[in-house]
């Protein structure tokens, strides 16, 4: 039986591997253009990455368009639903950023799953 998949945009933020649901990503550019923009490392881990973002993913919310600075590789791939796990309750309670919602295993590594709808709402940061 074929497992259903979720189209995801896979990217890196510093040393960490992340994924966003592809339907929330409307574009990608190598230079930032939106007034609202933020680096993924600073947003998610409160730790600005030493290297500047290589790409800027374009997302939108009720306030309009904004951009998320990420590192390569950036790829579009469908991840099997059976391989996506919600974050366990103790970690949900203690996560720094509410967008961190799950994890996928790609042994020997893992990939953090992000809820795109909660990414910007947590930050009060101005333009990067």
């Amino acid at each position, binding site marked *: 039986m074929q497992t259903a998949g979720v189209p995801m945009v896979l990217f890196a933020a510093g040393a*960490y591997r992340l994924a966003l649901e592809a339907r929330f990503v409307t574009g990608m550019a190598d230079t930032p253009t939106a007034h609202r923009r933020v680096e993924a490392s600073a947003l*998610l*881990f409160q730790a600005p990455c030493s290297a500047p973002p290589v790409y800027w993913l374009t997302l939108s919310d009720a306030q309009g368009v904004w951009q998320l600075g990420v590192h390569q590789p950036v790829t579009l791939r469908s991840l099997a639903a059976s391989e996506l*796990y*919600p*974050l*366990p*309750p*103790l*970690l949900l*309670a*203690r*996560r*720094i*950023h509410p967008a*961190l919602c799950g*994890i996928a*295993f790609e*042994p*020997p*590594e*893992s990939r*953090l799953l992000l809820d795109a709808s909660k990414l910007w709402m947590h930050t009060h940061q101005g333009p990067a």
Partner: protein
Amino acid sequence: MTVSDHGALTLDQALNEYDAATGVVDVEEPSQQLVLFRLAGQRFALPGSAVKEIISHDQPVYFVPGLPASTEGVLHLRGHIESVILPHALLGLAPPTAPASGMILLVAAAGIRSGVRIEQLDDVCDVPHSLLKAPPETLSESLRPFVSALWQPEEGAAAALLEPEALFDAYQQGLG
């Protein structure tokens, strides 16, 4: 009982003298299974009913960024994902100096299941309730909310029996 002139018994007499009840321990005394382990060199215990599994130290734990230092990460166990926490900070103990290398206790309490990294597994044993004593007044402030009883074995230091519900609740509240 008839004793011969030399004070000896016959075999029949000896066998008839056997009292089946002699030396039998009262097995009806209520007891509790404890999983005994060490953290920062101190002895602790968790109720056996709460420890669902003892996981080998070589089970891979995946680091998850964006969480406090008391979170070691997650493990992928037979198609399930479990958090792994380090209880040291919660219990006011010194943080481990070396990378985690002890076993992981998979603990279920208050509707939550999580791995708890320990430094050394000592024993799994049944302890009569009568041997579990109330925590002393001298117990540290940091341990007091989490210790329900103290057990002093015949040998070695006393073990503090932890309440897993209190541990998980405090962790969720942002302590540790």
